[in-house]
């Protein structure tokens, strides 16, 4: 697994402050994680280790909670966000095949980010473009009637 670029020292310091305020409080786990997610945009490994040590929770449990809730991410957001619609209309018109293709060609799962930090995939429900399905929105651009074989060309436009 590629390690994300380190946080700035100032941000890392803030993370430690947040964690420190839950010292010895295992029940504060979800709360501290969600504050860190909000502050840092993701949850780096060394931060999770500090959470485990400071709260007195096993790292096994910390990682279990992080990977259980979709709210938490282990990688920083990609430079571009692909919002893929899996609403009813887009679904029947082939959204699942798009997800399959993204997984195969980019190793991308919903909620995940490519190792090179280029794309983050989010699955959403309805862009209000049901007549244009399957629809995806990359950053602020909507792409309509996307076919799996056209995905590569579309994505290549986003460096």
């Amino acid at each position, binding site marked *: 697994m590629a390690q994300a670029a380190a946080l700035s020292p100032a941000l890392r310091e803030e993370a430690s402050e947040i964690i420190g305020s839950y010292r010895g409080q295992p029940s504060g786990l979800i709360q501290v994680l969600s504050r860190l997610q909000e502050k840092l945009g993701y949850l780096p490994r060394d931060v999770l280790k500090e959470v485990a040590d400071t709260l007195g929770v096993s*790292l*096994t449990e910390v990682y279990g909670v992080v990977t*259980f809730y979709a709210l938490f991410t282990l990688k920083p957001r990609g430079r571009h966000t692909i919002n893929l619609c899996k609403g009813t209309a887009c679904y029947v018109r082939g959204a699942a095949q798009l997800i399959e293709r993204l997984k195969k060609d980019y190793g991308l799962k919903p909620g995940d980010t490519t190792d090179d930090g280029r794309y983050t995939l989010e699955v959403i429900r309805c862009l209000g473009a049901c007549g244009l399905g399957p629809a995806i929105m990359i950053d602020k651009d909507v792409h309509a009637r996307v076919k799996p074989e056209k995905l590569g060309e579309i994505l290549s436009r986003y460096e």
Partner: protein
Amino acid sequence: MAKVTLTIDGRKVEAERGMTVLEAARLAGINIPTLCYLENLNAIGACRVCVVEVKGAKALQASCVLPVAEGMEVWTNSRAVRASRRTTVELLLSDHPTECTTCIRNGTCELQALAESLGIRRVRFEGEKHGGVPDESSPSIVRDNAKCVLCRRCVAVCEKVQSVKAIGPQERGFETAIAPPFELPLADSVCVNCGQCTLVCPTGALHEHDDSELVWAALADPGKHVVVQTAPATRVTVGEMFGMPPGSVVTGKMVAALRRLGFDRVFDTDFTADLTIIEEGYELVHRLQEGGVLPMITSCSPGWIKFIETFFPDMLPNLSTCKSPQQMFGALAKTYYARKVGIDPADIFVVSIMPCTAKKFEARRPEMTDSGYPDIDAVLTTRELGRMLKEAGVVFDALPEEPYDDPLGVSTGAGAIFGATGGVMEAALRTAYEVVTGKTLPALDFQSVRGMEGIKEATVNLDGTELRVVVAHTLGNARKVLEAVRVDPGRYHFIEIMACPGGCIGGGGQPIPTTDEIRKKRIEAIYRVDRDMPLRKSHDNPVIKVLYQEFLGEPNSHKAHELLHTHYQPRYQYAQL
């Protein structure tokens, strides 16, 4: 306790309030099948195999988490119940590799037994399979998540009994996997290799790392002089691999069986258990008299050693520097014994038969090579030995009782009781008393340190000196004792710790099933072995006396330190992150 009366399958059954329907049914002799349930440890209603029909309830109920109630009417085997169980098990099987004939748990798998007892002949469902490659990073334990049914019994043991928490549920939904954090290989986790998870895993998802091929190869090599040692606890358990009742003492048959496999010499770890008592006893007396670090803690259990290195590295100076009996044996086999028989130690291959998966890890510790060669070349658990004997067609029940070979096969009852919790303490006290007081011990049995109680404290009067001792088994109990010592370092002089419940008789390499009831029978057997030995004190072992005269000099001598003692290393939890 208040009693309630309920009806199960049309029979009036009395139960205590607070009991579950499953417990009440079992007490009444009614069998409800289970899969994720583990007595006293895991009752989470997850697998839905134990469902029952309850009058007035909308849906079937998981009996392992359903409290009994007055007047409750329960059916455990109605048509709806049986149909539900079948569907549940078929769904599990639809995502399970159907390689039962080649699986290490063939014949001891609970999923297999369940499918058989439910009469499942066909799986109606087809769907995605987990697949994946087994994690063989650990020398002790293999994780094969393709066979995992997510029952969480391993998680319960690792957390509640051992307080290690190396593995837990990660991800969610179909992606859920029981794994170390960050899905690290087991070898990079805080796993201490105790193998208790392999005892409770219902399937082949967690099992011992099988090293039998290494041993077959050595036995077939005419250039190798292959010697074997048998741990104290194996002589009261290996019979179970052949259907003998728990608690059967099979020492002589095991020796005969090992000869049938072709080992050149069959020796006994009980011999080096006696030696451990001498070395550790003198170390304790030295620490008591010279103001050394106290309390001193035993160092025989390799799961315990990795545990203290990982979770209490600040307390490593409290550990006895003695190697475990397994490692002492190897070090002597390749020095003293090699010289005595005139064989180049490079040609000696030492195999251990152990109740323990962590012994495999211990044997591979880089520092365990003081003779210039690895002390131990291969470690087999009781289960692996049982399988090898079956493969070789050895008819275990029909074997004669044969004695161990000289000289490393001579032992006392004190060595034998190493196999049960409290045994090392008792053996040490038998020797320490006589060494310190110069008098003969009036009564050999120290009942206060025996038995399944988790933490056993005792005070022993050594001719005016009060020795405060404590015995703990399971790492959860070890943690409690260490935390108490941190607060009050003067609380004890000497501590025995064994990683596994019941001590080595309940080790992670022992036959499946291993339950508390079975552990108790094995413990009784260990004390029978002790009682029937002509010598019962380690310092009375005649070969130990000769060994010191001919080779080691005296207890804790320079030579003894070089070969029989070791050092420990702090292991910081997840230092790689």
